[in-house]
């Protein structure tokens, strides 16, 4: 799956996107554990939403191969 980082998270992590493989049946919570391991800057940061394929998702949602998961810090458009 593809992980995309935006705005302040993109800057803090230092990349716009990365490819990641998780075990079949993994949920967003599992992804977050993996991301916090590789990007310690995410530790203690709960101030973002998750979108899977452009749809805001809860952390227990299962992920599939080919999903695009975006980490969205607080928005400020308009």
């Amino acid at each position, binding site marked *: 799956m593809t992980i995309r980082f935006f705005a302040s998270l993109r800057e803090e992590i230092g990349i716009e996107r990365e490819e990641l493989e998780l075990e079949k049946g993994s949920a967003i919570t599992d992804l977050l554990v993996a991301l916090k391991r590789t990007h310690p800057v995410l530790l203690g940061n709960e101030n*973002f939403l998750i979108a899977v394929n*452009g749809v805001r*998702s809860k952390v227990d949602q299962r992920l599939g191969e080919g999903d695009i998961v975006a980490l969205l810090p*607080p928005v400020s458009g*308009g």
Partner: protein
Amino acid sequence: MIKVTREDFSVEEVIQSLRRKEVGGIVTFIGTVRGESQGRPVEHMEIEAYEEMALHDLEEIRRRALEKFRVEDAAIVHRVGTLKVSENIVLIAVAAAHREEAFDACRFILEEVKRLVPIWKKEYTLGGRSTWVRDEPTSVS
């Protein structure tokens, strides 16, 4: 009309797209880059979007506004990229038979855009300091 664009938009063109015989008024809101932020002069602004999702969200907000209010049509145009002070950021235009519904729908759309759409503004103040604009706190659901 729903658009996320790097180029500046023509307010007149958007308004023209909403004109029709049922319409008695068109309310517009134009957001522009303010030259001051927390007491510091702003030099320019960078706007970033998750464009695919932003377009989808803007469409959905427009659809909800048309459903909720008695309005004929609505347009939302939001810019991304590097913007100088006083440049246009966003245009919301709502056409309705009567003014009350047009004003209400325009306000509704603006607040929903600010609350939901994955667009981020970063202000660069004179002296090289930069800050991500924070409007509303959100958290992992």
